[in-house]
Structure formats: structure tokens, C-alpha cells
């Protein structure tokens, strides 16, 4: 596998600080849901910087989609969120990663837990699930600070419906007007009650995918294990320091 020159064929503002880029990658034959790509930028003097981004596109999608969250002190994300336009070219490598992936051949129910921009690979899983018409029950728990910061805002309900997935949003700071649920951090009690409500009646195996900031993932994963989940059935992707 080599670095390929991708065309930016679409950009979409997701939130005030995040943007989705649609990429046409020569030779792209799709990915597994949950995989990532590396994106590399090159300055005029040859200096290069590369970072990894999870795909949010369906496994078989023609264009690869990544959603980039602006890191205030970042080197690559400010360019991708503020500088790139349709028609620009970027170097990409991938798809990459063989562990945090979901395959339509998996029959067991899935739980998806996303924090902030960690929703991206979970949306890839949902899209793939919907396209494959998978019968596996799916539940998505999405923790996000406020309605403005919901990724895939206009599509999320439809995506969940298409995948026959139950969507639960936990707003941590502000909820939309008329919201009847609670507002506040996704704590252990909330994860536990959500997990209980999403457990298969027959007590069978579930696969869980958790993606988000390190503290968020630690909390969600620890809580699931404490309430009986097999640690090997819980796949995680963390970002940020601890």
C-alpha cells in the first residue's frame, strides 16, 4: 500500500469546530467499517505532517469520508477544518486497522458508544449495517455537549432508523428545547442503565465499540466490564492524553 493523491470532492461543516471531507481516492475499493486512514500534508520546503482519521463512510462507499475536529494547537486539523476546499488534493494512506472493525457477517447484537467526534467510526458501522441489511440489533449511545455539536446532525435519526438501531443521545451541557431526557455527563450510572436496557433478553453475546476521549472511553469500558461484559467483547479507540 502506498500514499495516494486524493481529490477533495466535498466538504461539509458538521459543527462549529468540525468538518467532514469527502475524498475520491484512486484505486479505493472500500474499507471495513471502523477503519481509519492517514492524511499527510506537505509544506513547500518538503516538511510533512500526517495524522490518522477514522472513516465515517460505509464500508463500500465510493468516496471515503472523514470528519476532522479542530484541535486549537493542532498542526494538521486547522488546515483540514479551515483551509481545504473542494478540488484540493491531499495524500492519504489506507484503509488501516484490523481490530476496531465491524463486519456484516457478525450476527451478534452491537452496542456503539461515542463521545464527541468519536461518533465517526460508529456512523461508519451504522451505515455499513444499514447497507448490508444486517439483522443484528444495534444500539448507539452518543454523548455530546450540546445540539450544535452533534455530528451528522441532519442524518443521525435517519441513519439509526435505516440500521434499525436505537439511538440514545446524552447531552452533557445543553439539550434542545423541549428535551425531556436528562442533561449531564455520561456517568457510570447512565452507562449501566443504558447497558441494562440494551441487553439481549436471551443473555447472549454482544459486541461493543467505544470511541471517544480517553477519560470517556475508560469510564464507559470500565462500567461495562463491571456490569459483566467480557472485556474481549469491548473494542475501544481512545484519543487525547491521560
Amino acid at each position, binding site marked *: *500500500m502506498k*500514499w495516494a*493523491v486524493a481529490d477533495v470532492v466535498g466538504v461539509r461543516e458538521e459543527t462549529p469546530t468540525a468538518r467532514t471531507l469527502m475524498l475520491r481516492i484512486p484505486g479505493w475499493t472500500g474499507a471495513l467499517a471502523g477503519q481509519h486512514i*492517514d492524511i*499527510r*500534508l*506537505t*509544506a*513547500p520546503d*518538503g*516538511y*510533512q*505532517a*500526517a*495524522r*490518522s482519521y477514522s472513516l465515517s463512510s460505509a464500508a463500500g462507499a465510493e468516496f471515503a469520508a472523514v470528519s476532522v475536529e479542530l484541535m486549537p494547537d493542532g*498542526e494538521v486539523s486547522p*488546515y483540514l477544518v479551515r*483551509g481545504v476546499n473542494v478540488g*484540493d*488534493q*491531499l*495524500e492519504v494512506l489506507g484503509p*488501516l*486497522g*484490523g*481490530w*476496531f472493525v465491524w463486519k456484516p457477517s457478525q450476527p451478534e447484537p452491537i452496542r456503539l458508544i461515542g463521545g464527541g467526534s468519536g461518533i465517526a467510526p460508529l456512523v461508519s458501522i451504522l451505515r455499513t449495517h444499514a447497507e448490508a441489511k444486517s439483522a443484528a440489533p444495534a444500539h448507539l449511545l452518543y454523548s455530546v455537549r450540546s445540539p450544535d455539536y452533534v455530528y451528522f446532525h441532519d442524518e443521525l435519526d435517519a441513519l439509526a432508523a435505516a440500521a434499525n438501531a436505537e439511538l440514545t443521545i446524552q447531552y452533557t451541557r445543553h439539550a434542545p428545547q423541549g428535551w425531556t431526557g436528562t442533561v449531564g455527563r455520561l456517568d457510570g450510572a447512565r452507562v449501566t442503565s443504558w447497558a441494562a436496557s440494551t441487553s439481549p433478553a436471551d443473555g447472549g453475546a454482544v459486541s461493543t465499540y467505544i470511541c471517544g476521549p*480517553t477519560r470517556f472511553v*475508560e469510564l464507559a*469500558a*470500565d462500567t*461495562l*466490564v463491571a456490569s459483566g461484559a467480557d*472485556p*474481549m467483547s*469491548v*473494542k*475501544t479507540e*481512545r*484519543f*487525547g*492524553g*491521560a
Partner: protein
Amino acid sequence: MGIVTPGFFGKRREADPHLPPGQYETKDFPVLSAGPTPNIHEGEWEFSITNESGDVKRWSWDEFMDLPIENIDTDIHCVTRWSKFDTKWRGVSLDTLFAEVETDAPFTMAHSYGGYTTNVPLEDLLEGKAWVAFEFDGEPLDPEHGGPARLLVPHLYFWKSAKWVTGLTMHETDELGFWEVNGYHAYGDPWKEQRYYYDS
């Protein structure tokens, strides 16, 4: 080099001899793990080396603490492209541990609590190149970072420095570990950018 990205200039202007190709420096300590963080108490922790004949040498936590402890000051390089300079660890050298083990097998597999494995040639663990580390920056190693103890093999990409390590097994052939089966390179030299399985 690749195509120039119009309008991109980057932050770092000078080549840093400590930085392997394709890496950037971070002051953070990002956490990358495949699953939940195992919760292992020192009282239940043990480390063992099993040689090719099946003989097992074991150390309890207390026995481990009685071994010579070294201070390690090293740069670390994660395959996800961050590097962290001058990290400070305390641990026991693998030379000390292998002094008590009879083996002629050239390959090792590191085993962790939680079931993860990674393969490392024996020669990469000897002659002052590797440790079992239990302190980071003057504090007991956090569970997220592999505590109570992790392997520390800083000349290879950091996934080789297995978190929650509990033992090594010796092998005649180089078998692939957990991340190596899942797309990462069998050896993982950061200076040769051996990130993924297809990198030479």
C-alpha cells in the same frame, strides 16, 4: 516527497534528529488500547518467563521489587505518529531477568493481562534495550498506561512495549502477536517507518 499542499506550512521548521520519520512530538501521553483497561493489583501480579522446554521462572511483585532497579530516560514513539521525548521510567532490565533463564530460542512473545500479545526477537530485549517498567515520571504506572507494569522496548514502536505485561514465552520461530495479526508490522522499527504489515 509527496505533492505540496497549497497553504500548508506546518509548525516545526527544523529537522529534529530525535524524531523518526513521519512522527510529531507531543507533551501529552496519549492512551491507545484495544479494549478496557485491566485492573490488576500488585498482590496478584506476577511475571514469568517460559522457555522452549516449558520451564517457567516466576517472580511475584515482592520478588520483583528485590531485583536491581534501573532508571531509564528515553524517547518513545507510537505508531499513531506521536513521539514523546525524555520520558522517565524505573524498572528491571530484561538482562537481569534472562540471567535466571536457560534458553536458546531466538524469539519471544510477550503476554499481557487481558490476553494481548506482541512478538519481539530476544536480541531486542537484551543488552540494555528493554525493561519491565512499573514507575513513570516518579509515580506508580497508571493502569491506562499499563500499570502495574509494562514492557518497555523504546527502540521499537510503542505497541511492542506491552501494557499489563505478565510474561514472556520463548519460541523457535517468529509468530505474530495481537496487533501484528491486526495489520501492524512484525518488527516495528520507527526509524525505518515499519508501521503496517506491508511496510518493508
